[in-house]
């Protein structure tokens, strides 16, 4: 496969980036504030990339990503706080339970399309939130105390695995089937692609990584409360994907990094932050509905640039 050429450089640069940041953290150059931003950024990237698989690749408009995040957060908190199991087990179980939630949500609602699917997923996410609100075992509305366990290493490993799996999935036969569902579902059906199967699969994988992000999220913030996982959280994640470009993984990552930095600086002014977010949504949709990068990836730009330079050398 031609994409495999990118595989080893990707792993190499990822390990290098990890090592540099870990070194800076252990030397104390990056203090708690900055390492926290980095962890938060990684969590957001995991969320954005997992939603990108559902919206950008498979074209299923889901407004319920915060629901899977909530499942992951609560399950992992139960595993570490109530059952006293180690954190990696919690991350894995959070992912698995979120996948189950994704299947429960996905199988009935994926019969719907477009705006109906959006509203149904929104409804499911709200139901999940209300269920946690009503279970006293996890603290109800007051929330649940969680010890801080998320470190840069955990966040990075999860981020790395997420991106690796989703990139490989997208470039595989299954990924291409998902893209064909996005482009034209009826045509894909006619070509013999089991569209429901691929939609549910994308939903389940997206939910798994949202659950993983939930585990990291819960163990980074000391307390989790049902109101953290409302409709606005889903919109937060949606903005990352829409701004980056529906269908572009690197676009989603770049947009997440930018917006996380912006929202960190606007932490004390939540209204201003939401006004900026909403303006971003409106303006991007009105003037550049494809998002910043459309369906292009950063590597595509390199290729374009290279072929343009090559053309010039040959005097074309």
């Amino acid at each position, binding site marked *: 496969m031609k994409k495999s050429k990118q595989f080893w450089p990707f792993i190499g640069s990822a390990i290098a980036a990890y090592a540099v940041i870990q070194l800076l953290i252990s030397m104390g150059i990056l203090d708690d504030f900055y390492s926290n931003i980095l962890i938060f950024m990684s969590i957001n990237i995991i969320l954005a990339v997992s939603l990108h698989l559902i*919206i950008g690749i498979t074209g299923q*408009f889901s407004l319920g990503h915060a629901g899977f995040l909530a499942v992951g957060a609560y399950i992992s908190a139960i595993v570490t706080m109530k059952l006293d199991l180690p954190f990696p087990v919690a991350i894995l179980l959070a992912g698995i339970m979120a996948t189950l939630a994704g299947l429960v949500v996905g199988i*009935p*609602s994926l*019969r*719907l399309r*477009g*705006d*109906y699917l*959006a*509203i*149904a997923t*929104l*409804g*499911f996410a*709200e*139901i999940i939130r*209300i*269920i946690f*609100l*009503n279970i006293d075992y996890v603290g109800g509305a007051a929330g649940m105390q969680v010890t801080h366990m998320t470190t840069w290493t955990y966040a990075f490993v999860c981020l790395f695995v997420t991106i690796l799996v989703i990139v490989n999935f997208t470039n595989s036969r299954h990924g291409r089937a998902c893209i064909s569902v996005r482009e034209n579902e*009826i045509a894909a059906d006619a070509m013999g692609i089991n569209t429901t199967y691929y939609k549910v699969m994308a939903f389940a994988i997206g939910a798994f990584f949202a659950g993983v992000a939930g585990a990291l999220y819960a163990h980074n913030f000391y307390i989790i409360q049902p109101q953290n996982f409302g*409709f606005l959280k889903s*919109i937060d994640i*949606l903005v990352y994907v*829409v701004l980056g470009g*529906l269908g572009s993984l690197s676009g989603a990552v770049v947009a997440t990094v930018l917006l996380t930095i912006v929202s960190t600086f606007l932490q004390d002014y939540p*209204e*201003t932050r*939401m*006004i900026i*977010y*909403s*303006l*971003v*949504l*409106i303006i991007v*949709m*009105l003037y550049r*509905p494809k998002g910043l990068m459309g369906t292009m990836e950063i590597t595509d730009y390199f290729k374009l640039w290279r072929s343009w330079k090559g053309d010039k050398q040959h005097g074309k």
Partner: protein
Amino acid sequence: MEWLQQLINGISLGSIYALIALGYTMVYGIIKLINFAHGEVFMVGSFIGFISISVWGLGFFPALLLSMTACAIFGVLIERIAYKRLRNATRIAALITAIGVSLLIQNGVIYIRGAQPAAYPDVFANTSYNFFGAQISSQAILILSVSVALMLILQFIVHKTKIGKAMRAVSHDAEAAKLMGINVDNIISATFAIGSALAGAAGVIFGVYYTKIDPLMGVIPGVKAFVAAVLGGIGIIPGAMVGGLVLGVVETVVSALGFSLWRDAAAFIILILILIFRPAGIFGKNTREKV
């Protein structure tokens, strides 16, 4: 007679949902857009009513009319500025824009006046009437009569006037309507104006009945009104009324049975069941998909 009491409460709540749902259903029927900002128009209408009653000292009916007019203008502005360019865009792009507009209005209001709630002034002496053992407040009667009157006016506009005929034509087939000499853009604006006016009226009524309003009050009633519209069959005007009333009664019954924390979940469970088993809604007809 506690059940009769709950039924009356449910119908009062349901008529508010119905008024909001009418705007959703009319807009969806005509341009196939879920206008997420509709709940925010309801909120703005409520605040305009609040200001005109408590600051300018107007009575209930002048405040209601003022709020309806202002909301009609507001709705048309939203349509002209944000949605008009998106007529030919994908459904997802339109939906995302609508979510953006909704967040912008919410946070704009919070930015201007802060997030603290406001207490609606009393506009009516609250007398209760005894009706077969159930207490009916004068406010409940008022809400019901105003809602019913507005719905009758709407039915009249849609079925008996020229603009209503044009609206039905556009929602049936916009291209053909254009060929018949109907100005589609103006009709779409008129639809937004009427729907937003109804939402403004619902806002004032909500304020009078529940006495507490805040900038985020539009979110939950907005989504529930959408559920009501889907329940009745989206795009169908009587469907929105029936859907709103059914939803209001169901919610009140769920609360009365002692599951008040699950009240919001009930609406969403209804939504998902209806979408799965009868996506066209109570009054809708199934349409076959064509390639």
